[in-house]
């Protein structure tokens, strides 16, 4: 029943941070950070995704461990797909 403890104030703070991060990511894109532009953009996106998943989707307070296992394995599967595929595609060139 811990989900009852999440206060509306916390939700507004999370929302404010998400809006700020949105404008930060749009602004930073116009700076020349060399190869770091993409890294910064993806890091900010992952921070935003984590805020939504942990606080808005109540994963932080989820009492059921099995739910957390499902979430972590889902992300793990995605990383397997991306990682193994890129290991292949990045060692060859398409066309030309």
């Amino acid at each position, binding site marked *: *029943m811990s*989900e*009852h403890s*999440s206060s*509306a104030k916390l*939700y*507004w703070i*999370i*929302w404010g941070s*998400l*809006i700020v991060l*949105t*404008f930060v*990511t*749009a602004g930073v*894109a*116009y*700076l*020349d*950070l060399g190869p770091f*532009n*993409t890294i910064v*953009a*993806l890091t*900010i*996106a992952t921070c*935003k*995704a984590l805020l*939504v*998943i942990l*606080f*808005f*989707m*109540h994963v932080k307070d*989820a*009492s*059921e461990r*099995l*739910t957390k296992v*499902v*979430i972590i*394995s*889902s*992300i793990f*599967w*995605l990383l397997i*797909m*991306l990682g193994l*595929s*890129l290991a292949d*595609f*990045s060692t060859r*060139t*398409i*066309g030309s």
Partner: protein
Amino acid sequence: MTDSHAATQHGPELLHHFADEEQQRNSASLGMWLFLGTEIMFFGGMFLAYLVYRLNYFESFAASSRSIAVPLGAINTAVLLCSSLTVVLAVRAAQMGKRKLLIWMLILTLIFGLAFLAIKGVEWHEKYEEHHIPGNFMGRAFDVSDIQRDFPKLHVDPQHAQIFFSLYFALTGIHALHMIVGVGIFLWLIYKAWKGDFGPKYYTPVEIGGLYWHFVDVVWIYLFPLLYLIDRKPL
């Protein structure tokens, strides 16, 4: 005898095979997360295609991405984040049994969702006018010579640009389809909330519908930088 007696003690919102309301709620969100796991892989396939082509055809991808208006994308991101706030406030209202607040938060979510789709429509129309829809959509043949003119320092290969825009329309299109499904779910939630079906003891549909809505929001959180902000640094 005592067991069957205890089973009749609970209210109509608790199904017989669950021990208590909390177990029932946890089972429902576990099931929803399993579905969202399949959704992660579904969108993941498209993200993988995007990644492979972006790495190989970076210049054309960068130039094509520059032709998409950032302000509309940023506003749409903010609109979706606002809708996620109203969703989570709706869940809270249901938990506290505030029926009126719940209905208002659900309606606000619906409005934000429709606003997102409307802005998306404006963006797609812009791409249509600019001949940036792959193939020969409604008599407008795909043509990116305007992008080459705008960014002479980048080499734009029309075929590679066409792959970018195919991925752009596939990703934003499937995302928008999810938004339309979400709008349907929330219309149903508003109807149920209006009837007074939700309260502190039973708000599972609000929570589960909310999980779906937040997931679609998370997908957009990645789509915005990946499609709009590939390469915006001064040339």
